[in-house]
């Protein structure tokens, strides 16, 4: 019996060591919750908002940066500066003898790359002598972007390259099949979830988000009081902030319907979070 107890104690000690290290020895990265299908209110969207939506999809739901980043270098950069911007390389690639697609403009090239990735494979990034792309078709499978979301990403990439944003905001675009079947989003339980759910980080620097279109909100509680912050969410055009990264903010940039979209508890959580962001 003594041996039995000794071994039980030894096993418990070993397991405690493993679970202790897993909990306290390594960082607890909280994975993003499963993506929810959002109904896009395209009719009320400005081009800046559409581009911001593309930014959010590019860095979030689209999972583009999993491969298109400067760390792993598993896929060519798309949103960098100069030659690293896909829109700046598009015309050159369209003239490449290896190009097998039908696009004629940067906009069409980017769309084609997302829907038919092997139409052109950048040298060194494909298999079978760079004829087969490892990229998934992003309108299918686990990513499954809708056409409007694809357009938003294209708008973001064109804007990032500093070229003319030729893509048009789809007007009255039918929601994707998946959006129709999606259940209503669950109410957020934490301020971070509210921020993620309503995409605040697409424009604002807030929490872990690094949006660069709207004012930085990481210390907003220091300079703005609670009534101001409530008003800023419910009626964003009542006070136009002057501290957007590029200078004074443009009126009408922030969607005016967050008050209608948020639940009462979500709104309160967000306000209190901003008040405490000092």
């Amino acid at each position: 019996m003594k041996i039995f107890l000794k071994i039980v104690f030894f096993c418990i000690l070993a397991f405690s060591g493993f679970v202790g290290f897993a909990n306290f020895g390594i960082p607890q990265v909280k994975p993003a919750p499963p993506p929810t299908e959002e109904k896009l209110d395209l009719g009320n969207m400005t081009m800046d908002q559409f581009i911001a939506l593309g930014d959010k999809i590019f860095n979030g739901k689209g999972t583009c940066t999993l491969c298109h980043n400067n760390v792993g270098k598993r896929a060519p950069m798309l949103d960098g500066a100069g030659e690293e911007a896909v829109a700046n390389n598009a015309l050159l690639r369209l003239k490449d003898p290896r190009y097998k697609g039908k696009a004629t403009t940067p906009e069409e090239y980017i769309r084609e790359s997302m829907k038919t990735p092997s139409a052109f494979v950048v040298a060194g990034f494909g298999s079978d002598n760079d004829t087969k792309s490892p990229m998934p078709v992003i309108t299918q499978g686990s990513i499954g972007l809708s056409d409007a979301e694809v357009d938003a990403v294209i708008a973001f990439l064109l804007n990032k390259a500093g070229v003319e944003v030729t893509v048009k905001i789809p007007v009255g675009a039918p929601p994707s099949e998946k959006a129709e079947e999606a259940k209503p989003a669950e109410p957020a339980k934490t301020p971070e979830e509210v921020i993620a759910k309503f995409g605040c980080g697409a424009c604002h620097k807030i929490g872990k988000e690094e949006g660069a279109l709207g004012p930085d909100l990481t210390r907003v509680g220091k300079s703005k009081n609670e009534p101001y912050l409530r008003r800023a969410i419910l009626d964003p055009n009542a006070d136009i902030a002057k501290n957007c990264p590029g200078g004074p903010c443009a009126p009408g940039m922030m969607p005016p319907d967050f008050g209608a979209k948020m639940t009462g508890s979500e709104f309160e959580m967000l306000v209190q979070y901003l008040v405490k962001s000092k």
Partner: protein
Amino acid sequence: MSFFSGFKRLTCLTLLLTVLFAGGFTFTSLPVFANTANPEEAVKSEGTTTEAVKEGEKKVEYPPAPKLTVADYPQIGSFNPRILVWIVAQLHLWFAAFVLAVPIFVLIIEALGMATKDQRYDNMAYEFIKVSMAAYSITAIIGGLLTFSLLVFYPDLFKYMASLFSRSMLAYAFLFFAESASLYIYYYGWHWLEGGFKKWVHLTIGLVLNFVGTVLMLLANAWVSFSMSPNGVDPATGAFLGSEWNVIHNFLWNPLNLHRVIANIAYGGSIIGAYAAYKFLGSSSKEDKAHYDWMGYTANVIAVGGLLPLPFAGYWLTKEIYAYSQQMGITLMGGVFAWLFIMQAVLIGALFLSVNYYLWCGMERSEGSVRYTKNIKWIAAAVVACFLVWFTPHTLVLTNQELKALGGPYHKYLGPLGIMPAKNTAVNIMIILTFLSFTLYRRANKIATVSWAAAGSAVQAAIFAGAIANIIFLGVFYGYFTNTAYKVAASIPQVSTTAVVIIFTLIIDSMMFKGAKDVAPLKWGNVPGRSQYALFTLAVSFTWLMGLMGYIRSGIRQHWHVNSIMRDNSINAFTPTIGYAAQVVTLAAVIFMAIVIFIFWLSNISAKKSAAH
């Protein structure tokens, strides 16, 4: 001959016929998988697929994969079905791995005993299979519980999977009977089928047992790998395309099969090793201590034999995951799961260190080991250094201030050690050093009598040194002086180098120590008690590691029941944090080890009672 003896023969004959019948059923049913429609010929029609059929035959229509809502997942109070299924599935896997692996090496040991005419091998093989018998019924019980849990809490998923794997699930049920029958004949007929031709019959039954067990595992693997890399269904709707063979033969099936077979052997060895350690610690007589020391040593050799090629099988599986879906591969190695590999490094480090420590302690069995013990500290230091390289993360999670102070997310000196070429280099060297420990252990009690012994040892030393230098060169050159696309190109020549060391050392050893003299008789049982805890560390670490890697394999599907085909829309579809996952794995591992130790304890009191009688 008594009536009872005749009855036993009749029973065994009946069971044997059952095995043959079930095996025959499987063989005749397997081709059915392949003779259905070609996926390309299948016609899609409004969310359903229609199997291409000959004119005049009835068309078979297959429904799409169901699209579920929260309401489709039965909820019983605040009970968490995901954790229940997770734990039950993991327990089933642990026990199944054990009971599938043990007959493999039992058969080999039994054959070895027959070839060498050494009864000790036969006795040990019998004791191994005896330990697995209790585990076998527990595996079946937990398997039933798993099916029940899936039916209750994930009925639509189960229904969809059953619709795709209908024939193979039926074959699985028949094969389960066949395995039970062959196992019972193999175990209960051990002493009945002794000597001469009867022994051959017994070995054949063992072969049938292993064949059936392996086919069972391959079928179960198909269900699991399908959920990661679905095949044979319409990628847009998930509707079956008509060929069950295509569904089974999905992209990740074979890599998973190889990985599991090797891991099962290593795991089975480690659990048997723990059993031997338990018995050793509880033994008071010299004879018993010697027996269980030998048994523990053999089990450790089996575990190490599986452990050494395991990283390469894992590497192939990961490579194929990348090839199937780069997105899934990066989620695994560079995304939210990446930090779990630091945990994996800790566990594999624990495995290698405990294996080496056990071998070093085992040198006390031989008086000749003093020639080598002074070198052990250098091997220990090198193994720890390799472990630390494996343990080093690439990207650090930092605050903005820390990021500024460091000048980026990577440490200047340690950052380069975080990438795969460094880790591949470390693991290959660690394997070579472990093999070196094993080689020193094996020759500790021998004195070579051939004239070229000194030259042979020098050649072996040169092979070890040259191989380590080559592995480091390949890792550094490809890892740091080539483009990203070639960074892991060193892995194949590195593995080949390791294989060369093992093969050539064994060949030279076998020639050099032919007819060698023993320094003194080996003193089995003359090992410190702490060495037995190294065997326990092996079993415990293996158990936890399998739980963790099982979670990773399953978790990289994220919010999909079947990757990109059938979405998990339950409230538990989230990917948990590492801490959360570790807690669930630990809970499952504690339950498993409690049952295992309980089985050991039961066998102990049963043995005491038998001895008293």
